């Protein structure tokens, strides 16, 4: 029987060498890595990683204990019901920006959900300056009812002072 995928999440102050050290330890015990996402959020580095073949959740946590301690990371391991080769293709991109205020993500994602959009990828940032922050959000998703409901929903968001751009995406395959 195929070994289950585990989802590792690791977060800690960003320092060079975290990824290399974590993956070296896992490779050393014959682990297989699946899809991963890693990024700097704030001054922290966050890792989400599909891993299998390195033992149970407790065993993987044990394997990474010295790395966790060396880098001062927070580590979490869960068994997940995941599979590879399940990619989906976004057919719409939504980019939002405005002066920062509370509730932007909640407002935008609720409106997009209502308009039939399933989010596949979302990245948001706070830019500008500490006293005049701006919020920028990039979302890729798939629509259930086409682009028109998304465009209508965006018009309503614009009334709330958000600048929103919707771009239909068409994957070229050849």
């Amino acid at each position, binding site marked *: 029987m195929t070994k289950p995928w585990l989802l590792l999440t690791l977060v800690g102050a960003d320092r060079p060498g975290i990824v290399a050290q974590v993956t070296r330890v896992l490779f050393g015990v014959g682990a297989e890595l699946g899809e991963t996402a890693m990024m700097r959020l704030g001054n922290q580095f966050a890792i989400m990683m599909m891993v299998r073949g390195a033992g149970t959740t407790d065993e993987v946590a044990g394997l990474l204990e010295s790395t966790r301690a060396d880098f001062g990371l927070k580590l979490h391991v869960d068994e997940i019901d995941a599979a590879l080769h399940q990619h989906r293709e976004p057919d719409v991109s939504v980019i939002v920006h405005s002066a920062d205020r509370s509730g932007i993500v909640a407002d935008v994602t609720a409106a997009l959900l209502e308009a039939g959009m399933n989010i596949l990828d979302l*990245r948001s940032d706070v830019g500008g300056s500490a006293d005049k922050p701006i919020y920028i959000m990039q979302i890729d998703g798939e629509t259930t009812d086409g682009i028109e409901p998304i465009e209508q929903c965006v018009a309503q968001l614009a009334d709330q002072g958000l600048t929103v751009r919707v*771009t239909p*995406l*068409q*994957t070229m*395959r*050849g």
Partner: protein
Amino acid sequence: MSVEPLPILTYPDERLKTECEPVEQFDPELREFAEHLQYTADQGPSAVGIAAPQVGRMQRLCLVDATRAKRPVDNHGPLVLINPAITNWKGFAVGREGCLSIPDYTGKVIRAETIELTAQDVEGRTVTFKMKGFEARIAQHEIDHLDGILFLDRLVSRHADLRER
């Protein structure tokens, strides 16, 4: 004509990284191959183009068919491009691409927004086209195949956002 689709080579087959030879013989066998190649593309998941090396024929022939786009785009109809050469490029756009030879992966690629190309048709006659947008993207992707270049070789950041096309 055979009713079986031609087997499609998949990454990392070395032939997909190999530059193709020009077509010199314009004969019934070539026309039959072009039809067979089209039939093969039709069996895959919504392909809008295919190139001869993707089925192991290392010659400079590809198909471009923007009429098969999910959303209507400017197009010149279904095209067989033989010995194609891009003679002019203008503008840039980011778009998402996939490939029959690279299942289950799509990624962002920057391509010229408009191109001019010259090629030969199945009879060996010289043809020229001015393409833009999605059709230009297909042609650039397929002509890359003839030079042993895959869209993986041209991937840009997941967050790239020159005007998407």
